[in-house]
């Protein structure tokens, strides 16, 4: 086994707040330059750039997990990852059924472009992707688990859109594979001050919306090979797989 560096929370130009330079091809180039072995594409309420990112990743020898950062009706952001693009496509159907239909105003929230490998703009998502689903966190987690996915509430120590800011407690009845902690000032005090999270695997990622932030924060995983199933084992601390923070 060996250690792999993974940044599993990256937005593309499809997210309205994602920089125009965040095309899948640029993201993968930047991830390679930063020495990352794995990344995940996690746009707000969309998996629509995952297929392209995985194709480019395969050509360049970097593992790309298909995922999304879901905004639940409680406005809790949750990372979701799927073992293959087919499962991600099924999850996209769930998103399409559940997303509140609010038309994006690009001049306020930013454009939501879908691009190809050569960075041509193929189209634009018209529904505002930072709106929430109508499904609560329980329903979202249940659907992710039905699809054999990984479910990790995002940036739980941030003042907005995290488990603590929105719920105020850890829903310990949910099948959560881990919790994401942002490396913002005070994160160590946060971890020490919340002993109830000590039983969960804590991971950290960049939540990059711009190229330069990719890999600014990442987690190390001890794995047989960099893939979805091995990540799941590491999150559960099984089979000798492990997680550590750089």
């Amino acid at each position, binding site marked *: 086994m060996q250690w792999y560096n993974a940044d599993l929370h990256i937005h593309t130009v499809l997210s309205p707040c994602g920089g125009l330079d965040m095309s899948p091809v640029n993201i993968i180039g930047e991830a390679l330059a930063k020495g990352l072995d794995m990344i995940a594409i996690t746009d707000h309420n969309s998996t629509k750039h995952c297929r392209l990112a995985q194709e480019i990743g395969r050509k360049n020898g970097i593992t790309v997990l298909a995922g999304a950062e879901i905004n639940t*009706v409680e406005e809790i952001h949750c990372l979701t990852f799927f073992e293959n693009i087919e499962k991600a496509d099924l999850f996209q159907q769930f998103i399409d059924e559940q997303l509140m239909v*609010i038309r994006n*105003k690009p001049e*306020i*929230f930013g454009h939501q472009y879908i691009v190809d490998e050569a960075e041509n703009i193929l189209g634009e998502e018209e529904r505002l992707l930072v709106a*929430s689903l109508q499904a609560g966190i329980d329903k979202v987690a249940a659907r992710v688990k039905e699809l054999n996915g990984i479910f990790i509430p995002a940036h739980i120590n941030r003042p*907005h859109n995290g488990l603590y800011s929105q719920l105020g407690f850890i829903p310990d009845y949910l099948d959560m594979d881990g919790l994401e902690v942002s490396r913002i000032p005070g994160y160590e005090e946060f971890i020490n001050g919340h002993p109830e999270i000590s039983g969960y695997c804590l991971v950290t990622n960049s939540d990059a919306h711009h190229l330069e932030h990719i890999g600014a924060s990442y987690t190390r995983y001890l794995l047989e090979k960099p893939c979805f199933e091995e990540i799941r084992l590491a999150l559960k601390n099984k089979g000798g797989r492990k997680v550590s923070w750089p």
Partner: protein
Amino acid sequence: MRIEDIIQELGITVFTGGTLLQRPVRGAYVSDMLSDVMGRAKESDLWVTMQTHKNIVAVASLKDVTAVLIVNGGKPDEDTLALAESEKIVLLGTHEATFTVCGRLYQLMERDAMV
């Protein structure tokens, strides 16, 4: 009814948009969930919330609400104030809780046959 009428009647603080208080208020919506406001608030509503972060400015712009009234003595964050000034969004504040201020607001609107 105009924003300035409500300010006068309810003793409200003006954080931003002091020159825009002639704008008409046609209704009100109360919610702290941004997506809910995005889905349900109407143009020219007064939006009542406890949120103070800058995303309220984006939502207020999206929905063209007349003003945002922050309750419980909440003060907009510094970046919220700056963005609201540049986006010409009226931010108001009250020390009262949502229940109380909305009760008074409802009475005002009832008087003007708005509800």
